[in-house]
């Protein structure tokens, strides 16, 4: 029992000192395999909280206090931090987390406790289906696959396509499946649909098979490190056509790994820092000044998710879970990644942007509305 008391003591002290502030839980993987995602997300969240506090707080002069916890991208760790934030810190709402598998553990805990939660970047459809307290700030896997297919068919005029994806990753698999569905619905032909095991570095076997079908375009809905390698090997095997992918491409590392091979590459993303809207430009400028780096989509979504939550708490004028939930449902707000409203499954109805890789730079190409 000594251990319990030992752990309790500092907690009681910490809890007492912030009684006036509205406590918001933030969760993201700042260590582990997805650490860069977690850090960007945390930066975005912190910025949103600071902005609201600088404006004089959320409501009645009460400021927001962000309590951020690391989930290491691990579901077991997720269960711990969700319990901690809700039971120990008594947060009124949770903004988190990045990876779907961890959000899926947190969502039932939030739902059972009646603490509203908004995930910035968990794209798995099942997350918000857990219950009516669970929201998200990003679009879901089917939408991104669908947008990719529409873009390839309508904009790139591709009539045949191939897809290569990671068998061990739900995100890339989900995108590939939805791309295939939509591309075939539009009347295109998917000539090859090749999965590779996680951790593959030599994709020549799959790519050779893909190139035999002579596709107009290859869909690579993977993370930037794999995309760089796949693109390089596809070009080495003589493929000249366009490559299309998803938001996993969004990293400065992509061009470093892929070099010129990723030219003539396009990907769907949540936002572009080149978007001319004033709210985007103000965000980019402030973020650069504060953190000394170009904000990626995760930073934008972390910022947006926190902003949406704080806006809902303000409109609710209350820290009660049910009141915040109802205010969240009624959200209609312009944020960095577009104008946000929620559908009946608490997924945002919002636009996607298409980004092109041109001369080693990410160039904004177009915005696609749902």
């Amino acid at each position, binding site marked *: *029992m000594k*251990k*319990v008391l*030992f*752990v*309790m003591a*500092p*907690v009681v*002290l*910490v809890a007492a*000192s912030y009684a006036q502030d509205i406590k918001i839980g933030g969760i993201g993987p*700042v*260590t582990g395999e997805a*650490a860069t995602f977690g850090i960007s997300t945390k930066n975005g969240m912190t910025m949103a909280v600071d902005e609201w506090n600088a404006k004089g707080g959320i409501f009645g002069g009460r400021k927001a206090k962000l309590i*951020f*916890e*690391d989930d*290491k991208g*691990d*579901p*077991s760790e*997720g*269960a*711990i931090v969700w*319990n*901690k934030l*809700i*039971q*120990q810190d008594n947060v009124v709402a949770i903004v988190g987390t990045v990876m*779907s*598998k961890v959000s*899926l*553990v947190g969502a*039932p805990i939030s739902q059972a406790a009646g603490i509203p939660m908004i995930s910035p970047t968990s794209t*798995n459809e*099942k997350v918000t289906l857990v219950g009516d307290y669970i929201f998200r700030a990003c679009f879901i896997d089917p939408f991104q696959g669908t947008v990719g297919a529409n873009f390839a068919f309508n904009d790139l005029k591709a009539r045949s396509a191939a897809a290569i994806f990671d*068998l*061990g*990753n*739900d995100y890339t*698999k989900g995108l590939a499946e939805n791309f295939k569905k939509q591309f075939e619905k539009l009347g295109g032909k998917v000539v090859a649909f090749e999965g590779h*095991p*996680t951790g593959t570095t030599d994709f020549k076997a799959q790519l050779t098979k893909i190139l035999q079908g002579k596709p107009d375009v290859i869909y690579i809905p993977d993370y930037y490190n794999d995309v760089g390698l796949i693109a390089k090997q596809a070009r080495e095997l003589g493929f000249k056509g366009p490559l299309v992918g998803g938001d996993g491409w969004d990293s400065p590392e992509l061009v470093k790994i892929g070099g010129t091979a990723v030219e003539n590459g396009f990907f769907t993303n949540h936002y572009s820092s080149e978007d001319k809207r004033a709210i985007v430009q103000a965000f980019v400028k402030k973020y650069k000044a504060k953190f000394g780096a170009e904000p990626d989509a995760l930073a934008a979504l972390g910022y947006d998710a926190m902003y949406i939550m704080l806006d809902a708490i303000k409109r609710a004028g209350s820290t009660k879970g049910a009141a915040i939930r109802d205010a969240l449902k009624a959200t209609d707000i312009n944020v960095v990644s577009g104008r946000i409203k929620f559908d009946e499954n608490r997924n945002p109805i919002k636009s996607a942007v298409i980004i092109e890789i041109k001369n080693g730079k990410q160039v904004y190409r177009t915005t696609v509305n749902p």
Partner: protein
Amino acid sequence: MNVRKLPRFLIAVVLFYIVVEVLYRTEILNGYLLHIINLSLIYVILATSLNLINGITGQFSLGHMGFAGVGAYVSGSLTTLILKLSVTNPASMLPFLLSIIAGGVVAAFVGFLIGFPSLRLKGDYLAIVTLGFGEIIRTIFNNIDAVGGPRGLLGIPKFSNFTVILVAAFLTVVIIRNLIESSHGRAMLSIRENELAAELVCVNTTRYKVMASTFGAFFAGIAGGLLAHLIQLAHPTQFGFIKSVEVLIMIYAGGVGSLTGSILAAFGLTFLSEGLRLGIRALADATGLPIGGEWRMVVYALLLIFIMLFRNEGLMGMRESRIIKNVEVD
């Protein structure tokens, strides 16, 4: 067996149960701390069962969480996909417990199978085989769409509670202790000390190595099932190599061959990890230093290094606490 000394451990566990329940009911202990206690108890099952293989029998297994994965997926599939049990229905408790046991039995069978090819291998080579096995299990779950594939098995009902987990942990420790103190256990110890000598005095080393592997896998399967029903998810990444190493660290920090050590380390390291989370936050708030939660794992790793440097036999070495011991042997 000395009957007079039998209930000592039972009394300790019952006292622990009463204290935790009272503190929880009076809201001194919140759901977060109860969750940490539950998690620690699951780690007790994992660490003591791995200790049976690594510490008592002297084999080197690196794939323990693979067995836990088998238990988690088998029991999770039974309760979620096949029986479709609901937490609100009190009649679901029995089928849930049977599902957990079924998970353990299947894991034990896998442990039995893996016991055979491993018989010809020792030390590092055995470690690599078990490592490979753990990865195979993980990859299999990753590729079965019926249990969610890479998305994981979702929507598992939250059946695991403090009572169930504590009883399971108690039974695990008692059964493993009794096994160690029986003639079978002595045979396993003799294999650890010197396999050749053990064989010369007619110990059937094959049989006891397979037995240790089977028993260890059974309890790991039980722990996996309980974990899946605690966090309501079974995901392939939870049962990978890194997770097996976490359990391995516990038995080495606690003392290889000591059940007491495994229990202390399971609680100690789980609480340490959380204590650091709160400690670092408090330190950052008090001093204004820019240190975030990410420093927690650095401190954790440093502490482990210090334990191993200054106490390389682990907390308990090979000793057992008098509370756990059933018979006195010297």
